[in-house]
């Protein structure tokens, strides 16, 4: 029996040889000699509980090509599978705006710093909707990409980051509506508009911080899925979106300032309506954002080593 087995082995032994010569696909330059490799690259060390330094933003940059393709995949697939497609990006904030205008603007008569309430609330809803969507998709992103996580290595942070970046596309689309509304209400644009891209980048950082934190927690505790919508809802009310900051009594405003989105949305509105920007509020928002991203990055990297085993 054994000799028969060996014959079988020999038959197959010759097969790949002939295939590869017939195929003749060249593999480019042959690999550099191993000694050269060893001299050139620092060795990759794998150890249990090995400390990873930094907050992972360097990893993100090193894998920007992957980030780009994941964002592109998310955007493409999202719009391929829906009937209304891009319209959703517009409809969602638009309908929310209508509802809020009726309830808070007309019925509750919430003040709006002298601007027409619809555009006032829409200017606040735009960054918020982006934040809300990004954090929600990011929080499910690791679990949703479990097949990838268990089969191939790359910095896991790329996955929630891609979810956040994909949200920017929706934001860009709905920003067109804001622009049209501004034309309708006869708002004159000025240099303040230049502030919008950096403000969105800042919002994206806040979303990245919250999103990656939630995504990592969600791998371990599936409760996040239930708790997050609730937390986001509360978040919306402690951010000056449906009301102006001036609506809050002076002595409580410092509390709101701890919420980075509060400063960002204030500045966003100021930029849209051509009003003076509250730079100190924005500076606080930047500081809290940096703290949030650092904390989130640090805790993400601590949890990421377990992802493949428990997801």
């Amino acid at each position, binding site marked *: 029996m054994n000799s028969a087995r060996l014959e079988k082995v020999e038959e197959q032994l010759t097969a790949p040889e002939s295939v590869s010569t017939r195929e003749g*696909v060249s593999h480019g330059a042959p690999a550099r000699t*191993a000694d050269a490799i060893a001299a050139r690259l620092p060795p*990759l060390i794998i*150890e249990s509980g090995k400390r990873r330094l930094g907050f992972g933003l360097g990893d993100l940059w090193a894998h920007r090509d992957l980030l780009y393709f994941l964002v592109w995949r998310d955007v493409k697939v999202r719009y391929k599978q829906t009937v209304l497609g891009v319209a959703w990006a517009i409809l969602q904030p638009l309908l929310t705006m209508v509802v809020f205008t009726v309830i808070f603007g007309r019925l509750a008569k919430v003040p709006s710093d002298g601007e027409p309430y619809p555009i006032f609330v829409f200017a606040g809803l735009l960054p918020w909707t982006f934040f809300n969507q990004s954090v929600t998709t990011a929080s499910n992103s690791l679990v949703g990409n479990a097949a990838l996580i268990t089969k191939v290595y790359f910095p896991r942070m790329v996955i929630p980051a891609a979810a956040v970046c994909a949200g920017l596309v929706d934001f860009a689309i709905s920003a067109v509506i804001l622009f049209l509304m501004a034309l309708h209400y006869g708002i004159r644009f000025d240099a303040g508009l230049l502030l919008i891209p950096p403000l969105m980048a800042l919002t994206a950082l806040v979303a990245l911080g919250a999103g990656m934190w939630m995504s990592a927690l969600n791998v371990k505790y*599936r409760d996040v899925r239930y708790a997050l919508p609730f937390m986001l809802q509360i978040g919306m009310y402690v951010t000056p979106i449906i009301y102006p900051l001036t609506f809050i009594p002076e002595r409580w405003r410092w509390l709101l300032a701890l919420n980075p989105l509060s400063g960002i949305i204030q500045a966003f509105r100021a930029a849209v309506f051509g009003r003076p920007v509250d730079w100190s509020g924005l500076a606080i928002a930047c500081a809290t954002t940096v703290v949030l991203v650092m904390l989130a990055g640090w805790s993400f990297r601590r949890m990421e080593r377990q992802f493949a085993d428990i997801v």
Partner: protein
Amino acid sequence: MQPIIRVDNLGKRYAIGRREHSLTMREMIVNAFTAPLRRMRSFGRGGRAANANGADHFWALQDLSFEVAPGEVLGVIGRNGAGKSTLLKILSRITEPTAGRVEMHGRVGSLLEVGTGFHSELTGRENIFLSGAIMGMRRAEIVRKFDQIVAFAEIDDFIDTPVKRYSSGMYVRLAFAVAAHLEPEILLVDEVLAVGDISFQKKCLGKIGEVARGGRTVLFVSHNMAAIEALCTRCLMLSGGRLAAVGEPLAVMSRYVAEGSATGDGAVALQTHPGRRPGDTPTMTRVELRDGSGAQSGAVRMGEPMEIRVAYRAERPVRPVLGSVIKTSYGAAVFCVSDRFCGRLAECAPRAEATVACRVERLMLIPGSYSIDLWLGDAGDDFDVIFDAISFEVLPADLTGTGRLPPPKYGVVFCEAEWSIHDA
């Protein structure tokens, strides 16, 4: 020469008893409160706590040390559950070891699955870029190799069709083509080659051989002994998470085959079987084989009945569904008998503890040694899966009436046939 991979006392421990699922917050809170209590109680009983060294953990890999020289093609063999996949997952940085250290010099590419990162809604072209990026290629690199990849996959006409419309063969060809054009110094390959048609499998093997001849280092996990023999310069055998043998491929392989055919007395206790799928709750307690005379035996004559009897004990009464796959000593599946497909016991009264018997009427296998994978579950779920649960020997019988039987190299199944001749 300096080794390109050095593995030192590597170990990986998994928790068992519960499936590797994520905890909910409630379980966490309950655990936090009950753990100290449990510990105290077990302390009172003499400290037999189920702790890190105890029963609720399991070492998928333990005390593993080896080195790989640059340019070497190392085959890794072992039965299911021996720790091969765990090793590859650690080397490719997907999971972290519990103990030990690995040092690698050079870029590492891993190919643990065909089609990693493919999205069915996207076209072939889009998936090449996506999958390439996921496996670590730069965009420029993919652009440069794009035509090669398409040519290798032989799908030119369908490159702009969503891959969900691909035949499974096309899908696999494209997926492998992307992976095959990675150019790392160290390539880790799992059993991804057991896919696609024969000619494509040969092409894949050829590609791996080419990579190896290009001076790269390859770690190749497979059950396909022929492939190991053809490609590898050295072979490593794992058994129960430990290094069992390393050396010349032929020597290690013959040891592997020999170990597989060590025929027992036809019964194996299953509570602590090394082939159990990690995380499964031990439900099957014993397997027994019976020959044509109804006696327990590790050897069955070909053409005669064989009975597989599996005893189980479950937490609650179940209608058991038993499945067994009969495999050659090389690990190739020959046939499967499973009540999942027959449903003969679907109406039985649920039992928490029983023995399920499955009788194969005529065992038409060519003499040699075989091994059995077992599954036990209910209508919806597999509770307990054990690979290579038991092995047995098939004894020759003169079914042809001439005293001659076809050799195993023409297939391991024996079929009876009628012969006639018809004038032209």
